[in-house]
């Protein structure tokens, strides 16, 4: 990955019937970076992708690639390839002809086309598939051909629009691995649109979170989990524990007791969050700090975790996700350990924070 600014969106705005679908988006993407545009459906992420591809024209703003303005460059001369959700292999062409399509449009020689096609089919593990018809392929195979078809033209940027959402859950993991490997082999800059934060987390160096046409936070996956910019971002990433606290330097006073945080909150009333998987439940009061006495109210086995609902004597409710090997009885008392580096705070919001369209909750 080189410096930022390889692909750059400046003040990008697109309106449909006067309503902004993409609103004043500024984004810098580095060469070789994998960036996800993540957000609920209708948040403008696909529109942004289509603006980059040149299928839509922005109402305002500028897109530059390697410093060159793209606004007046038609899609076929942008060197930006696009893979859509459904793959959309040309049904009247064979697999090989599909892969070679971009080369043919460029007037490459037959020999060159054949060599490159076979090489790309190899790369997506479909050696020997060149004479098949698209209708004979499974969904995963079709998507791999679509990838090969886009990569064969050696694009400067590869755009993927929900490339895995049409696939079965079990295929998705394999395809993620394949896409990651291809990106690493080719070093192509990649922008992925997805509504599934677990997919974005696995696939990207950075995630650009969009709500309602606006960028909310651009961060590494871990940063989005650990340092969300506000409560709505935290909720989108499966945050379930939110409480108000009084902050005094590193000390937070909660309804259940006082805890320390490594975060630097503003003084006074703040909103505090802690991820449910970061809370440890202990039977005994081993260490002194950041321990809250709690009662187990609910214990839901989800297969790979147990989701516990906890309550402090003062009525503070906590959700803790613990390994399945830890089994707690309903009504049992215990101590919840809230690690100082897992407590994160933001100023108490003055306007209701959740975005207009309901974000998807994390389904564990």
């Amino acid at each position, binding site marked *: 990955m080189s410096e930022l600014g390889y692909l750059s969106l400046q003040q990008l705005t697109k309106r449909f019937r006067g309503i902004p679908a993409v609103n004043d988006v500024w984004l810098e993407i580095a060469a070789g970076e994998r960036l996800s545009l993540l957000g609920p459906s209708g948040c403008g992420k696909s529109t942004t992708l*289509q603006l980059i*591809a*040149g*299928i839509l024209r922005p109402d305002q703003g500028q897109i530059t690639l390697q410093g060159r303005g793209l606004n007046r460059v*038609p*899609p*076929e*001369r*942008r060197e*930006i*390839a*696009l893979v*859509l959700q*459904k793959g*959309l292999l*040309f*049904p*009247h062409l064979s697999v090989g002809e599909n892969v070679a*399509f*971009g080369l043919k*449009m*460029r007037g490459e020689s037959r020999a060159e086309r054949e060599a490159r096609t076979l090489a790309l089919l190899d790369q997506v593990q479909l050696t020997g598939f060149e004479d098949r018809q698209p209708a004979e392929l499974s969904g995963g195979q079709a998507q791999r051909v679509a990838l090969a*078809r*886009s990569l064969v*033209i050696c694009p400067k940027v590869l*755009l993927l629009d929900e490339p895995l959402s049409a696939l079965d859950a079990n295929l998705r993991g394999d395809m993620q691995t394949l896409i990651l490997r291809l990106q690493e082999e080719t070093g192509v800059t990649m922008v992925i649109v997805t509504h599934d934060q677990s997919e974005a987390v696995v696939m990207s160096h950075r995630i650009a979170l969009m709500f309602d046409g606006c960028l909310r936070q651009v961060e590494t996956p871990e940063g989005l989990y650990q340092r969300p910019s506000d409560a709505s971002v935290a909720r989108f990433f499966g945050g379930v524990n939110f409480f108000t606290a009084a902050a005094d330097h590193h000390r937070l006073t909660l309804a259940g007791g006082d805890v320390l945080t490594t975060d630097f909150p503003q003084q006074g009333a703040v909103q505090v969050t802690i991820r449910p998987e970061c809370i440890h439940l202990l039977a005994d009061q081993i260490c002194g700090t950041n321990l809250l006495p709690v009662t187990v109210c609910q214990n839901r086995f989800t297969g790979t975790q147990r989701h516990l609902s906890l309550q402090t004597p003062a009525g503070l409710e906590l959700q803790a996700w613990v390994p399945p090997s830890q089994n707690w009885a309903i009504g049992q008392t215990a101590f919840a350990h809230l690690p100082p580096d897992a407590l994160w705070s933001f100023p108490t919001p003055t306007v209701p924070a959740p975005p207009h369209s309901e974000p998807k909750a994390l389904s564990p």
Partner: protein
Amino acid sequence: MTRKVVLTLIIGVLFLPFLPLLIWSFAQGWYFPQLLPEQWTVAHWQAIFTTSTKVGQGFVQSLAIASLATMLALVVGLPAGRALGLMEFPGKGAIKLFLLLPIIVSPLATLMGIQFVLIRLGLSGTLLGVVLVHLLPTIPYMTLVLSSVYANFDLGYEAQARTLGASPMQVLSQVTLPLIAPGVVGGALFAFLISWNEFLLTFFVGSGRVLTLPMVLFTSLQGGNTGLTAAIAITSILPALVFLLFSSRALSDDAAIGGLGDV
């Protein structure tokens, strides 16, 4: 097994009206209550190729008129169908509905007005005039079929081709046209048949001077030569058989049948 019998039965019933035609066309006299004619002949089929029966002339004129009407309908129907099928605009439903007018209103009702205009233009009784009135049913039909063909066309294919480096012209020739081809060919064949079978419009606008196959057949039907009439009738069915052949090939292809199966 039972299903095969039922199937044969249904297709048999549909073909039944054509059986006596076939017999008549080869019969030298076939009278009730004979089960089959006593004598067979190919005279009726030979007569078709003589100029006096005007079958040759009718065939050629029908072919020319139907081909022209179909081509013109395609020229108008392709862009109109794309607009109706792919774009959303107010009044779209109304337009599609009013395109049904030439199909649900008998030509008899509109003929007076049409004749009035054509006579003024000096086109009544001319081939061009007949071609023009044949556009009345074919253009709306073609537009409706192509709008449903385009409605099933995913614009993503065009976007995909563009980002792979295809220019708009390359997209049209390499992607869009090949993809909608089955629907277009099916619709064109059907439009051809509409024109080929057209009777009333040709009868009045042609004023007896334009002699399509239906005109020849109509005249022959009113005369008494059963054998010759049967041979002409069979000749007039040929394009429909071509259509069936094409459709049965494209049977597995939903795009082609989608536009036609609901007719």
